[in-house]
């Protein structure tokens, strides 16, 4: 314990050093503990499973797959990718047909198992935790390699056997069944057409994060207003969005006809002034999991009448009255509840 005898200046410095070390150790995502746990998990099996998953994904989307694309997807060099694929081939999980790679039945069923685990965990992360949407995929990628099938099946039962992951991808059944991919790319829609987003591609991460930032999500209904070579413009939930065809290619939609798509923006609950009354239209799918269930349990469902009655002296939250009770709701959540003002019209108030 040199610290005990030294001058205050040196011990201050030593103390600061120790403090910084502790902070570094516990720093989320980039700290020492996170670094060590990453090191432990980045093993061979994880890489093989990731490769199988990727090859399966290519097969499902009917895209060509070779050693190049595998190396690119797993972010490893060509040599390493080649060795990895040789090993998979020797385990009879894939067949190498000249350049193209295809799964064997055994490989496909292995891949489907991993995909099922991955998507169920994504569903869980979206519904039952507070983890950021942009991090679901990465987190599930980490989990899928070490949880057992039994754990996952237990979790699936607890979640009510979900059939879609939060990106809109179908979850394979435990028997390995998966519906045929359908829907078209958003970039193939024409001006004046309606569609419902069924899927946002979660890889590459940078593009997915952009789509999330734009507020797009599966289930959202869109109306195409303008298409040309460089951009595609559409209205979604009343918001005008413009995407490049590259980005639009990562969004899958199903065409809908004669859609009740809202062409102008819905007013939100937070815009309600004190004393005003409105009717709830719905809760944005951006409000998920526990918070969504809570609001619906309290009675915020389409058709209920709601009025703003009091506001905290600090400006947030606001007390809303519905179904005979008063509930305080924060602005961040009131921003996600859509309303219309039916009563103001009936009574001749100015809206």
């Amino acid at each position, binding site marked *: 314990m040199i610290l005990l005898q030294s001058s205050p200046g040196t011990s201050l410095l030593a103390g600061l050093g120790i403090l910084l070390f502790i902070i570094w150790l516990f720093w989320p995502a980039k700290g020492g503990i996170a670094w060590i746990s990453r090191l432990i998990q980045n093993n061979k099996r994880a890489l093989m499973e990731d490769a199988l998953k990727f090859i399966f994904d290519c097969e499902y989307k009917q895209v060509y797959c070779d050693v190049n694309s595998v190396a690119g997807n797993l972010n490893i060099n060509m040599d390493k990718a080649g060795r990895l694929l040789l090993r998979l081939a020797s385990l009879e999980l894939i067949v190498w047909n000249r350049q193209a790679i295809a799964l064997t039945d055994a490989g496909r069923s292995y891949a489907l198992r991993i995909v099922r685990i991955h998507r169920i965990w994504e569903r869980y992360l979206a519904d039952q935790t507070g983890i950021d949407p942009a991090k679901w995929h990465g987190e599930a990628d980490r989990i899928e390699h070490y949880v057992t099938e039994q754990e996952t099946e237990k979790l699936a039962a607890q979640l009510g056997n979900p059939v879609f992951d939060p990106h809109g991808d179908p979850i394979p059944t435990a028997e390995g069944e998966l519906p045929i991919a359908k829907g078209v790319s958003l970039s193939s829609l024409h001006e004046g057409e309606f569609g419902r987003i069924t899927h946002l591609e979660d890889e590459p991460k940078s593009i997915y994060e952009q789509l999330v930032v734009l507020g797009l999500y599966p289930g959202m209904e869109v109306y195409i207003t303008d298409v040309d070579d460089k951009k595609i413009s559409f209205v979604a939930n009343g918001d005008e969005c413009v995407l490049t065809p590259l980005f639009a290619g990562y969004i899958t939609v199903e065409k809908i006809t004669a859609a009740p798509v809202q062409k102008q923006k819905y007013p939100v609950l937070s815009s309600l002034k004190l004393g005003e009354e409105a009717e709830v239209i719905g809760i944005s*799918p951006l409000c998920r999991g526990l918070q969504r*269930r809570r609001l619906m349990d309290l009675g915020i469902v389409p058709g209920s009448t709601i009025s703003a009655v009091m506001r905290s002296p*600090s400006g947030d939250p606001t007390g809303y009255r519905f179904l005979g009770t008063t*509930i305080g709701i924060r602005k961040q959540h009131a921003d996600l509840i859509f309303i219309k003002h039916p009563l103001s019209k009936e009574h001749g108030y100015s809206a």
Partner: protein
Amino acid sequence: MSNNRTKGEDIIAAANSARWELGTNYHDSLIESIYGEASRISRNTVKQKGDKQAYSFDLKIDKIVTSRWLGFPIMFILLALVFWITVSGANYPSGLLASLLIDTLHPMLKDLATTIHMPWWLSGVLIDGAYLSMAWVIAVMLPPMAIFFPIFTLLEDLGYLPRVAFNMDNLFRKAGAHGKQALTMSMGFGCNAAGVVAARVIDSPRERLIAIITNNFSLCNGRWPTQILIATIFIGSLVPAKIAGLVSAGAVVTVALLGIFFSLAVSWGLSKTVLKGEASSFSLELPPYRPPQVLQTLYTSLIDRTMIVLWRAVVFAVPAGIIIWLVANIHVGDLSLAEYFIEWSNPFALVFGLNGVILLAYIIAIPANEIVIPTVLMLTVLSTGMSDIGAGSGVMFETDSIGNTASILHAGGWTLLTGINLMLFSLLHNPCSTTIMTIYKETRSVKWTLVSTFLPILLGLIVTFFTTQVWYLFHG
């Protein structure tokens, strides 16, 4: 393949593929239709009368207690009033219990032990150790809790407390916490164990954990007397006698505010790091005002809160009392175990501006913060060899006057820096054993119990270390 399947399996397979066709939001549609149907039925069958009127009266009260100008002042005045009633009201019964249990019953028990020729060590362990520690905890803990909890529960029953949460939520939202944490924090000023139990009102898992872990930063009833005593001796004495009271009170309030600051800062840190992934939701019920049910409130707050907390404290106080007596009386060679520890830990403690006596006192007085000062006094007398003061080794005591306490502490080598650091460490150290056990019972998680126990100690050591080293830098 399909030939091998039974009819049942076929149906399940068909149902599964049908669910894919249904899409993602059929759960929502289900809930919507249930509510739609329920409200249709109630519209057709239920008649309502009178509710509008009663509610408009509620609204008038709400307009006042949550108004921009009056909301916060009303809140602070009411809470200050609650604390004032607790502190001033507890003085007399506490004194009464102390004179009965400690000054009267304790010597009587000792006399009885002598008459029946009980060996000195047995009467020491049982009467000076176990009994005295238990008596001390009851005398200082019971009265404030028996006053504080009922008043707090009455305010809750009246419907006012949810409005406090409503007013304070913005601040707590910025710290990643729930507005109701304002309530568990206030409850923590009475007793941390009760504050931890009170966190049940927070229904969001993440915010509830945050409220539980940070409750210890509310300076509890057991620590206020320590703070006031040390502030009077070491900080009040720095200024002229006329303003000494005011300055030492200011110092104590500063420590309490520092506690609130740490509570919010740690909440923020936790919500951004280790608790980031926990599920979270917010909604705040603002129930109608109603006349409180006084008798029922008295009963539940006395039985459910006061007695349970007191019982847990007593359960821990008995073994701790025995240990306190034993470490002061078991000798190896010339020195007692306590003296060995004090000498051994002194160099380490000095780096943090504390001393071995304080460290040992905080370890063995874990059942209740209330017995830290009596333990410190006993250990100081023991380790400095002042045989003429106190009630014998291993027997906790308090002096008749602050002056006497001050002279004992000065003789023990305490300086202004020791005083300041003790105040800081009293705020930032592990919760008492009662609270730790309560945290385990509430979270059912060893991990979060350990975090709640060791995080404050870590912070306390960091804060006292830097205070001490910066102090030496300027006064060295």
